[in-house]
């Protein structure tokens, strides 16, 4: 079942003079998804997030949050949005409690409900013991948590986090990650990062942005995302037998009974190969899909000029 679309960006473009920071980027986020925005520095991640949160007007394209246009009804659209920018927007001269109470008010939480909202946000972000401290005196990691608490205090359906784990220690990073994973169950989260393991650990879907374009947009656990199969047989069959099989593209003999089989798009001939090997008595020693790790995909897509034309 398709769940509700919470955030939708259509051909989002942003130009700064002659430079195009983001180029017709499409993005859809459904309820319960955690989308990781990945990209090298200057790829347009932060610009995209600024546009998604209404802090920057797109040069072209449109953003819908919960079905409401960010341009035409900014207030209604922003109500279902929580945003943690790269630098937490905290006032150092206020205490954590004062600050969160202010944010709760800004996001339209009724006066009576504010105290509960503040308490639960503090609990979620592990801030309860620093409630009365001045934010300016807290460490960077705690300030980051205060920023995060601010983004989730009104329990928005969409949470946008720009590099949420920067400046945190490894334990805090784990805590924040599990918090994000937990939030992802009931909310939709977009987070940007250039830490690949983080995206893999938390996100359900990855979008790789390079030079303002979305070059990859797939679920993290896509099983079909492999281009080749590595096989090894004890008794080498004729390479042509393999080539004639369904779904098999080119076959490259690597010697010593090893082959690298390129698959046709979307095909998975592993089962057929195994059956043929048993029937032909080829002595199958090894059969595995050459999964490309996120890192390999990332490097491949962002190092050259490669773009998947239909990645959207």
């Amino acid at each position, binding site marked *: 079942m398709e769940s509700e679309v919470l955030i939708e960006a259509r051909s989002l473009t942003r130009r700064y003079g002659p430079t195009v920071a983001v180029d017709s980027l499409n993005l859809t986020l459904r309820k319960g998804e955690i989308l990781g925005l990945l990209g090298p520095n200057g790829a347009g991640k932060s610009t995209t997030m600024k546009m998604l949160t209404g*802090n920057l007007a797109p040069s072209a394209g449109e953003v819908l949050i919960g079905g409401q246009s960010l341009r035409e009804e900014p207030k*209604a659209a922003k109500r279902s949005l929580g945003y943690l920018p790269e630098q937490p927007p*905290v006032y150092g001269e206020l205490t954590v409690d004062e600050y969160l109470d202010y*944010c709760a008010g800004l996001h339209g939480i009724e006066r009576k409900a504010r105290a509960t909202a503040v308490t639960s946000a503090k609990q979620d972000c592990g801030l309860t013991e620093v409630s009365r401290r001045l934010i300016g005196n807290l460490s960077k990691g705690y300030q980051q948590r205060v920023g995060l608490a601010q983004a989730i205090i009104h329990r928005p359906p969409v949470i946008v986090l720009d590099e949420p784990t920067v400046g945190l220690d490894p334990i805090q990073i784990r805590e924040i990650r599990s918090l994000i994973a937990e939030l992802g169950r009931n909310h939709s989260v977009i987070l940007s990062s250039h830490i690949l393991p983080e995206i893999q650990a938390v996100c359900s879907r990855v979008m790789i942005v390079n030079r303002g374009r979305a070059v990859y947009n797939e679920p993290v656990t896509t099983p079909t995302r492999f281009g080749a199969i590595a096989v090894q047989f004890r008794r080498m069959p004729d390479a042509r037998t393999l080539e004639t099989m369904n779904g098999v593209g080119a076959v490259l003999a690597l010697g010593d009974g090893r082959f690298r089989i390129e698959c046709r798009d979307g095909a998975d001939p592993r089962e057929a190969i195994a059956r043929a090997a048993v029937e032909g008595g080829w002595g199958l020693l090894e059969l595995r899909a050459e999964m490309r790790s996120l890192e390999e995909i990332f490097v491949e897509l962002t190092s050259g000029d490669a773009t998947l034309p239909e990645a959207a």
Partner: protein
Amino acid sequence: MSNILNIARTESKRIFLSPLAWAVLAVVQFIMGFVFINLLVDYAANPSMDDTVGVSDYVAGSLYGFATILLLLVMPLMTMRLFAEERKANTLVLLTSAPVSVTEIVLGKFLGLLGFVGAIVVLMALMPLALNWSSDLDWGRLAAGLLGLFLMMMAFGAAGLFVSSLTREPTIAAVGSFGLLLLVWLVNILAYNDSIPFGEAFAYISLIGHFDSLRRGIFNSADVAYYLLFTSLFLWLTTQRLDMERN
């Protein structure tokens, strides 16, 4: 409306949490107290100058007249942080990504600043109030003077808020708004120069002329309207400026 009040409350709180506000209040009060005592001693030394000049004229007229110069110096310091510092510390995003309109942000900040303006007006009122037990004061006259001070600071504040929205450096905002205020203040110099046309218009635009009549106890709604218009103009410019920033 509740958004405006919420922003205003926090803004006021943040102003009074900063040592700058207290330093400014202390310095203003010290200097004004010095001038006030001087004026009193002066008045006591020449008691029978003229029956028509009373202590209220002396205090409201001269003390509040002097206050304008001091406030011209001080208000840019109070307005410089409003937007410039938020932009510098990247905290403006908190407001711009919350479900509040730009107008609400500007009005909230401005109302918050008026909290500080109110504190100065109270301090200014306390000095003549101290004479209430030993003399008969013309409270109507003092009230006109205080209203004038309030309106003038409101205008200063709006102009400073606008300049603060232009830059990300608080010091530049302070220098800029000081320059702007001084310019609007001094524009009536042109009125004294006969070779320049529209002299009367320049005199009317100047910030200072409209305060003078209030200081003398003459309440003219045109003067009040002038300050209100001046304030609204700069508040509107600020919203335009912030709106532009998104593009």
